[in-house]
């Protein structure tokens, strides 16, 4: 099971500049500052952060980059026989994955995975011993063309569902901050039991064991169960004799 972090980068610009102007155009897609107009050389970074737990073992963690993209050619002739879309994803500052798709690229979901040992991860990312924040602050998506576009490329280029699947080890966990519900004091407990860590002595009404007749002893012996070897002397329940019926 993994926890996806999803965001959508939707670039829509029907008024792109002519292709010669954006040859080798680099687009850094922001998360919260989507640009309306793609400008060459734009450099906008995004950041996603959240507390993640560090696993204690050196496990192989896999980061998956899922790209669901849809490139729609607008009006006009095709600018290129082949348009390469290079995807560079820098996750946590240490994973770089370069994927190349031909244009028109296969639409739908494309998944690129990258695995890395946890020790390597830790070595590449200075963290505190117990928790760190994985800032996705170097997400870069580069669009580049391999040659000058002869015509005008209009239409819409969309990137949707650029998501990072985080392995189990990085699942964000909830930390219960509230103190457990405890009574204000012992008097708040029904019955007013005052144990204070000491076992409560309760006289057992069904004490078990051998009943020992002790010469001269004029009471019963009740063994308590909560205290070893402790006994209590209790009255014999109303010793009674009764004569036969008289007057016959």
């Amino acid at each position: 099971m993994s926890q996806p972090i999803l965001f959508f980068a939707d670039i829509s610009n029907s008024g792109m500049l002519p292709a010669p102007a954006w040859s080798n155009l680099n687009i850094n897609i922001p998360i919260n500052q989507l640009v309306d107009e793609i400008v060459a050389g734009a450099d906008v970074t995004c950041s996603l952060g959240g507390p993640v737990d560090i696993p204690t073992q050196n496990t192989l963690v896999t980061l998956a980059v899922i790209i669901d993209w849809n490139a729609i050619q607008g009006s006009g002739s095709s600018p290129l026989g082949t348009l390469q879309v290079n995807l560079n994803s820098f996750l946590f500052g240490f994973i770089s994955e370069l994927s190349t798709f031909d244009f028109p690229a296969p639409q739908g979901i494309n998944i690129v995975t990258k695995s890395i040992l946890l020790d390597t991860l830790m070595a590449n990312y200075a963290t505190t011993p117990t928790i760190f924040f994985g800032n996705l602050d170097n997400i870069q998506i580069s669009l580049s063309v391999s040659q000058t576009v002869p015509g005008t490329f209009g239409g819409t280029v969309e990137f949707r569902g650029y998501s990072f699947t985080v392995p189990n080890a990085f699942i964000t966990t909830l930390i219960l901050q509230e103190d457990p519900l405890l009574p204000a004091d012992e008097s708040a407990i029904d019955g007013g039991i005052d144990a204070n860590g000491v076992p409560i002595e309760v006289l057992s009404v069904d004490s078990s064991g051998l009943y020992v007749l002790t010469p001269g002893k004029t009471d019963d012996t009740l063994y308590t169960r909560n205290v070893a070897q402790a006994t209590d002397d209790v009255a014999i329940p109303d010793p009674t004799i009764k004569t036969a019926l008289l007057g016959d």
Partner: protein
Amino acid sequence: MGGEGILHYGAVRMRVVGSGSLQMKFQSLDETTEYSILALTMTATTDREPTRLANFKSQRASLELKTTEINEIFKIQKIIVFARAMFSSYPG
């Protein structure tokens, strides 16, 4: 009397030693009626055989003796119940 006559149980005398208070009472058949007698304060040794008066009328009666507090004991060697016939029978 054959058990049908009504007797008057007037006193109890006994030889008893012990400690504490000896509770006594007469009880009729099926314990339908009873009469409590003044308790006896017992001692470990005594030269007396105390007598307690009673006023209980019944065809048959039994005498119950008991203690109710812890460490009260009694040892009885003799019980004398004073009874006298009062009536021959209840009306038929």
